[in-house]
């Protein structure tokens, strides 16, 4: 065992900045990372033991204890719950006779909850040993459990094969693309390699200028102008890096899954163009661990691109245009989608966002200037180079040019990916998604806003309601507080990196106060407290996670205040929720006494 571990570490040149890969390989090999392994890693990489543990214990998919020959990670997002997750979870527990969070069947099968796995259009879904199982039902669970008990390989357990490249032998997955609206930009026909060829005839500055004049803004959520970001990066002395953000962790988002499946060449070409513009020699795709089922396929496409001279050395025959891409897998941490946390993680550390300044474009990966761009942003650049900035900026709205991929899920007939022009009204999107009786729409995932029908006339755009792409539709029969807000708050509590005091502590305190209200012990003052504490969260935290962690409560309080007020005891101005009967129950039971209250 020890030699295997050492071989793994040597494969990464005993390099502590590759700690993520080292841990991942060991986890995959042994199903856990024991104290002994940690000691070996520490010794071989020159880290202290606590430092290795610091990274290890940060990520959901690393474990110091065995996770089982089969590790079932069942998504527990809002949409999964809407689609019948409870029955599926119950089926797993009943079949195995054990609860989630535990090892069952003498350590053979482990049951775990996990945050959104990017399958909101085909929930309930789970990942078992890197293989995705979608549209689960209690009946299907029965079959899966039986096959696990028989020792079948997970890849042989899938019963349906998805469409498009999902059926290619290198992916061979149950996942469906569900592309509902292709739009004129990303999914349109194009000639692979034409754009990168074209840029080799331009100067890097001309490429930056072209992107600038398209007014392309980042698709990852923040909407920073892409050309400007590249220009800033060029101002810092290299070596420079381009990182593609494929962490796609915002619950309800899955559009990048589809790009990675159907358009990986577009993405790699875009990265090569960015590399040319930035004079970068190395790029990283930071891919969420949940999408490991695409690993072999993406690696094969990378090889193909190299063979075609679209990556590697002297790309398109241009001397000195060398560029390599490596895939860095994440291991279950939403915050690693934040660009500086992503860089920390790619350097083998806990995914804690950095303080700014310096910005990544000044000091990023390994202290060098780094551009982090979203998958969709990078892909869009290729089409801009091919068709021209003017063609692109004609589409969309005033401050938001072009199109946007939207991941639609929840209570609708046609969940899937929609390429829309910026400026589309929410109402129109709801119509084509096949909805009726919509109570609320969550735009931009948990960190975004929850709006009611009064706001459906508003538009999806940076100037109105911006979004990284997740749109979750909440039907009339849902209980918005219990079904949605609670889940989102728990998500933020689990995913905070834990560095900032407000994000780490006040999120929990807000969640507890919410529970107090749900339990019928709320008073009007509690609502004021939530607003006040939430306002503090917005301004006091370091990164977007903490700054938006109160949004599920804040935006529903704003748009659905009556739902909260209905839970409030209006006759009382003070209620601690203290319950004497509950408080004495344990001790009375233990001393064998009937409580006399």
């Amino acid at each position: 065992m020890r030699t295997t571990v050492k071989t793994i570490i040597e494969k990464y040149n005993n390099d502590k900045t590759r700690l993520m890969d080292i841990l991942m390989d060991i986890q995959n090999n042994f199903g856990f990372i024991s104290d002994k392994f940690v000691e070996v890693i520490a010794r071989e990489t020159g880290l202290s033991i606590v430092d290795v543990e610091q990274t290890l214990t940060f990520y959901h998919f690393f474990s110091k204890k065995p996770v089982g020959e089969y590790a079932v990670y069942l998504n527990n997002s809002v949409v999964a719950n809407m689609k019948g997750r409870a029955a599926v979870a119950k089926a797993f527990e009943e079949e195995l006779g054990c609860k989630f969070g535990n090892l069952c069947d003498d350590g053979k099968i482990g049951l775990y909850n996990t945050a959104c796995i990017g399958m909101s259009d085909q929930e309930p879904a789970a990942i078992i040993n890197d293989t995705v199982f979608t549209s689960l039902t209690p009946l299907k669970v029965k079959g899966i459990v039986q096959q696990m008990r028989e020792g079948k390989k997970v890849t042989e357990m899938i019963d349906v094969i998805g469409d498009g490249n999902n059926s290619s032998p290198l992916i061979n997955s149950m996942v469906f693309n569900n592309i509902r609206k292709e739009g004129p930009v990303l999914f349109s026909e194009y000639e692979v390699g034409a754009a990168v060829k074209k840029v080799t005839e331009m100067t890097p500055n001309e490429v930056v200028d072209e992107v600038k004049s398209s007014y392309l803004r980042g698709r990852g959520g923040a909407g920073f102008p892409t050309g400007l970001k590249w220009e800033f990066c060029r101002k810092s002395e290299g070596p420079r890096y381009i990182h593609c953000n494929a962490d796609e962790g915002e619950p309800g988002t899955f559009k990048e899954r589809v790009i990675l499946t159907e358009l990986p060449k577009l993405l790699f070409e875009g990265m090569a163009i960015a590399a040319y513009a930035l004079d970068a020699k190395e790029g990283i795709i930071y891919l969420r661990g949940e999408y490991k089922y695409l690993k072999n396929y993406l690696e094969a496409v990378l090889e193909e691109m190299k063979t075609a001279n679209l990556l590697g050395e002297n790309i398109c025959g241009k001397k000195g245009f060398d560029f390599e891409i490596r895939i860095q897998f994440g291991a279950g941490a939403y915050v690693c989608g934040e660009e500086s946390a992503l860089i920390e993680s790619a350097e083998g550390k806990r995914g804690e966002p950095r303080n700014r300044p310096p910005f990544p474009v000044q000091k990023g990966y390994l202290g060098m200037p780094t551009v982090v761009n979203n998958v969709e942003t990078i892909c869009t650049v290729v089409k801009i180079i091919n068709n021209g900035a003017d063609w692109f900026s004609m589409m969309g709205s005033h401050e938001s040019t072009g199109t946007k991929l939207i991941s639609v899920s929840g209570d609708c007939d046609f969940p899937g990916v929609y390429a829309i022009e910026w400026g589309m009204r929410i109402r129109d999107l709801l119509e084509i998604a096949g909805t009726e009786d919509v109570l609320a729409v969550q735009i931009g995932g948990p960190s975004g806003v929850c709006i009611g029908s009064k706001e459906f006339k508003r538009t999806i755009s940076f100037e109105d309601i911006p979004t990284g792409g997740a749109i979750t539709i909440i039907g009339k029969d849902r209980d918005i507080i219990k079904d949605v807000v609670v889940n989102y708050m728990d998500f933020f509590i689990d995913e905070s990196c834990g560095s900032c005091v407000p994000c780490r502590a006040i999120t929990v305190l807000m969640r507890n106060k919410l529970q107090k209200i749900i339990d019928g012990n709320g008073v009007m003052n509690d609502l004021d407290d939530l607003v006040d504490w939430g306002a503090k969260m917005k301004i006091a935290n370091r990164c977007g996670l903490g700054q938006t962690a109160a949004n599920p409560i804040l935006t529903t309080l704003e748009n659905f205040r009556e739902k909260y007020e209905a839970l409030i005891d209006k006759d009382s101005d003070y209620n601690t929720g203290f319950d004497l009967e509950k408080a004495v129950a344990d001790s009375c039971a233990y001393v064998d006494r009937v409580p006399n209250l």
Partner: protein
Amino acid sequence: MSEKIKFTIDGKQCLAKKGQNVLDAALENGVYIPFLCHVKGVKQAGSCRICNVKVAGRTMTACTTPVAPGMEVENDIPELHDLRLAIIEALFVEGNHFCPSCEKSGNCELQALAYRYQMMVPRFPYSFPQKEIDASNSKILIDRNRCVLCKRCIRSFQDDQGRNLFAFKSRGHKVEINIDKECAVNLSDELAQEIMDVCPVGALIRKEKGFNEPIGTRKYDKKPIGSEITSVV
């Protein structure tokens, strides 16, 4: 001598060195901005968020913000006062701070901030978390009940090979501090004292020491924290 940068805090004219952060510059200019995680000369953490100030309407941590020429910093304003107090209170309810029995009481910076900001009772309910104490090190006892996760210890102490003596474990509200069993095995008394002194609270305690100073003579018994810089009005 290099050019000094002019800026203001609550209207008061201040001078900073090039590249200096707002917090250090403020303290040098006789303006107290409260903080907990900052240690002079050590890489900023920007994690306690107590030194939040306002610049052009935006809140930012003074310790991580470099002074820019002409910058107008707001510090002593009611909004920030309440924010800082809320953070201090959140720390009190997040851990188990039994001041009456703590070796650091009277010399604790968290407690001192609570005094300065006149915390009578936190606005949040207490959470009484269950935390483990680590007494395995021969010189230092770690009482995680009192740790405010400021990372001062992580950032301050490395062994001769550059390896960290302290590190975090886990994430979110489950984060806890850990000491390395190998790198921190033979701490000298001096280093142990330094470690205890760096910790703002009583989470890192030297074994067989404590309660050395009688009540009344401790650091914050008579004078508020920061009063050597700006007195409390």
